[in-house]
């Protein structure tokens, strides 16, 4: 989020390598089929950095969030949090790790228990982590601190969720997530359920909290304009795989993968100047994850698809700083800065993507 305090490369809060997760789904009359929700996800998040996760419904971004929060256990792949694998933790260590990663949920109405007061909701984590704030005095001090941090009054602690607006409820959710002082916050579509005017308030709040607390964010959303405004780097997901990743400006101004280009082109723009001359309207919809297309998963809707796309899954091709597209792992620039996409025939120029050159 913060442009001036550049995330110091090399010091990654979180590193994920080849994470896969599939669910067995009972398909009607007997017999069950494997639904590959995550199919080899790799990503990393720097200290104080905001990584955006963009994708349409059914691409697996919520499953990824739940897996990183250990609400689901992955089938394969590794997760490193500050160098340690949280899935190997047990008991005390696991509890200690829990404090360092927290989550803010999408629906402000469903994420708060209607029978508890705001104060009880925010200090619920203290019940499990008793050693953090001994005694009720320390706790109520911390509670007031948190309320103030998210712009609520200390008298709000006694109100029940029904007495708050959508925006205020989301602030309570954020306060609860900050209660244990985490290093990484996973924000699962935090503003999608809010009205436009309230959305801006919460985005500003998240921006300020990151500058104040230096907490890193994984910002999940399907709204491109919000992602463009909020994230430092972005990863575009399609049917369980990350098909393009890079610094936000690069990806938005020079999308490499046809799907990213189609996303940018299809989304309606408020400013007429930003509208593409020739809009790409994809055919059909997301194929069923129960039997994803072979090779490149996007080939069934891609206008550049050729035979090779069906037979071989494309490996990552990078965009060098000098603008030419090189196959295989690019050597230029630190891994985090690289602009990568999984496609045999990446989009060569913004014009081809129908985008107005920035």
């Amino acid at each position, binding site marked *: *989020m*913060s*442009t001036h305090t550049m995330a110091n490369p090399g010091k990654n809060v979180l590193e994920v390598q080849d994470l896969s997760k599939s669910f067995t789904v009972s398909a009607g009359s007997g017999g069950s089929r494997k639904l590959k929700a995550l199919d080899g996800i790799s990503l990393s998040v720097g200290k104080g950095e905001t990584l955006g996760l963009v994708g*349409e*419904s059914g691409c697996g971004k919520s499953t990824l969030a739940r897996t990183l929060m250990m609400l689901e256990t992955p089938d394969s792949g590794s997760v490193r949090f500050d160098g340690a694998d949280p899935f190997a933790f047990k008991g005390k260590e696991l509890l200690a790790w829990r404090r360092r990663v927290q989550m803010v949920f999408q629906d402000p109405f469903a994420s708060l228990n209607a029978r508890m007061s705001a104060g009880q909701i925010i200090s619920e984590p203290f019940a499990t982590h008793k050693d953090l704030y001994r005694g009720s005095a320390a706790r109520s001090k911390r509670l007031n601190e948190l309320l103030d941090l998210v712009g609520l009054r200390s008298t709000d602690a006694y109100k029940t969720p029904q007495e708050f*607006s*959508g*925006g*205020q409820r989301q602030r309570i959710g954020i306060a609860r997530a900050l209660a244990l002082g985490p290093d990484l916050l996973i924000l699962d579509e935090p503003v999608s359920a809010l*009205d*436009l*005017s*309230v*959305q*801006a*308030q919460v*985005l*500003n709040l998240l*921006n300020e909290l990151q500058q104040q607390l230096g907490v890193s964010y994984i910002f999940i959303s*399907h709204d*491109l*304009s*919000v992602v*463009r*405004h*909020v994230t430092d780097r972005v990863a575009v997901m399609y049917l369980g795989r990350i098909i393009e990743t890079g610094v*936000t*400006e690069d990806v938005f101004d020079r999308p490499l993968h046809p799907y990213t280009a*189609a*996303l940018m082109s*299809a*989304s*309606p*723009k*408020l*400013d*007429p*100047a*930003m*509208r593409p001359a020739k*809009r790409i*309207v*994809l055919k059909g*919809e*997301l194929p069923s994850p129960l039997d994803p297309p072979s090779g490149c998963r996007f080939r069934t*809707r891609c206008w550049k698809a050729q035979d090779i796309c069906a037979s071989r899954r494309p490996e990552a091709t990078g965009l060098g700083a000098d603008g030419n597209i090189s196959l295989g792992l690019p050597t230029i620039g630190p891994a985090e800065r690289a602009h990568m996409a999984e496609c045999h025939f990446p989009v060569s120029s913004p014009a081809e993507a129908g985008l107005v050159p920035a």
Partner: protein
Amino acid sequence: MMELLDSQRAAEKTLTTVLAVTGLDVDIRTPTGTVRVVNKVSFTAYQGQTLALLGESGCGKSMTAKAIAGLLDPVASVAGGVVALEGKDLNTMSARARRAVAGPSLGIVFQDALTALNPVYTVGTQLGEAFRIHRGMNKKQARLQAIELMRRVGIPEPEVRASAYPHQFSGGMRQRILIAMAVALSPRLLIADEPTTALDVTVQAQIMALLRRLREEENMAVVLITHDLAVVAEEADNVVVMYAGNVVERGPVATVFSAPTHPYTKGLLESVPTHAVRGDELSSIPGSPPELKNIPAGCVYQDRCPMVAAICRETRPELRQTGENQFSACHFSDVLVTQAGNPTNDHSLTSPQLEDNQ
């Protein structure tokens, strides 16, 4: 200035009015007394054009649409005003006459197709129902019409798919079925209540393209209800901005969005994170919309308006002409007009600095 949308190039005077709503009032009876949720709403929808009802949740736009279509919930009722569809006032019509109109001259598309389609009937039966009611067709004839309709909205293999059930279709497909149902008897007016809010961006583009094509083929007037400014910017010819049950501004989209003459419209436009420089503050509208139960006397926007003054708290401003068939309900709309008069040259819609008298 903006190149006018092609349909607007048609000379103004040849536009025939399809729907003229004047002074529409809708009340909801609650145990603690009746609440006015739609207050003196007036607008006109022209043939072959799209009029957008724009506003945040709870502003009464959906209630207005339901009042026009005569589908209000039992607790709500039209308290006054005229809804003239092709000259005939729907409010004074008998229930039987109103039913005769539903279908042949007025169609409606709902937001969430999964709940709007009857789960226990096949898609073919439901599509054919309009023909059986209004054209007295038997099952077989109605089914043929249904198949034709499905082909027209782009559903593949309609002969087979007609006997499938709603839960066997994807989101986009179901929305196409709803649209097909609404245009079955080529109505003069099509009301689309947030038709693509539940869909992903790439599918939204397909559905919007379909709606545009059907509007031209049937030469009908479309009333589009949405909260997405970008969709209004791209799809609508005229826009009516609603806030807390009242119309605060209306006029052609091009002029209203480039030179808003109401602080709420301007506030909304500035809350959209377009390509404003990444990371800095989004100017957001403080507070949240008032509950319809306790709308303040005087201007409805007074609690959140940066230009609020004494007069705003006493008298509620009437809609006044502020531009070429552009109207705004604000005592200080002339302040915004003069500013808009000399638009700053760059495209971005950053708001000219208002003397902040908060």
